[in-house]
């Protein structure tokens, strides 16, 4: 019985996690279509005037920069008024699209980066 139950539990919980991921992915895709797609393109490759964003966020520093760019903008990018949940969803969408795969970024780390980036200087 135990040998059946354990894989079964894995299956049930595994599915639940996947379900949440696809839901977050769908929400993130909607946020991307509304706010990002014009400049960064449907494949994240950017266009002549705006940079590609289809690479992996390698570490905490680049994640912080991504959050800061969204909230504060830069010389060429206007700041985008997104909620914490929307930032989380859109970053997870970008990190899991166009052949990319990454660990899910939890909303808590977005909130913690947000407080850092409020004090940081605006990136060029």
């Amino acid at each position, binding site marked *: 019985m135990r040998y059946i139950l354990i894989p079964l539990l894995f299956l049930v919980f595994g599915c639940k996690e996947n379900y949440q991921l696809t839901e977050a992915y769908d*929400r993130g895709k*909607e*946020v991307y*279509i*509304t*706010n990002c*797609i*014009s*400049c960064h*393109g*449907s494949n994240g490759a950017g*266009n*002549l*005037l*705006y940079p590609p964003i289809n690479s992996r966020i390698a570490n905490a520093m680049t994640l912080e920069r991504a959050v800061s760019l969204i909230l504060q903008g830069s010389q060429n990018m*206007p700041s985008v008024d997104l909620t914490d949940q*929307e930032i989380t969803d859109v970053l997870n969408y970008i990190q899991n699209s166009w052949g990319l795969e990454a660990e899910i970024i939890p909303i808590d780390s977005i909130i913690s980066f947000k407080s850092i980036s409020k004090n940081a200087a605006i990136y060029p």
Partner: protein
Amino acid sequence: MPRFTLNINDREYTVEAPEKMPILWALRDKLNLTGSKFGCGIGQCGACTIHADGTPIRGCCVPIKALEGKVLRTIEGISVEHPVKESWRKLDVAQCGYCQTGQIMSAVALLDRKPEPTEEEINRAMKGNICRCGTYNRIKNAIMEASKNRIA
């Protein structure tokens, strides 16, 4: 200047323009398709929204070269009998009307992706289109109305 062939509203247009010219400039000044409006010029207001391969883009910040080979649709390409335009007339949505072509383009793209959007989904999808007259509630109701009529 380089020449570009663009597929707009199921018609081929040839434009001679610098490759970094935003599509909105080409549409309005060179092709005389003046339905798409110039608002802020930095992709923040949504008045210039058009479709590229079915997704809404802001015409003021996409260079013409990036749109070669894509299927473009502007407000002129949405028929007068389209359910969205019908419900816009029925609910008398527009006030000054300047943002409305962009609003309609975003609404049409939303209903193409999600035929039955929830209120939350409408708010999320229409966030990039701002309206200085504040017709947001009528826009939302009109999208719900159009969604019902499309299915019926």
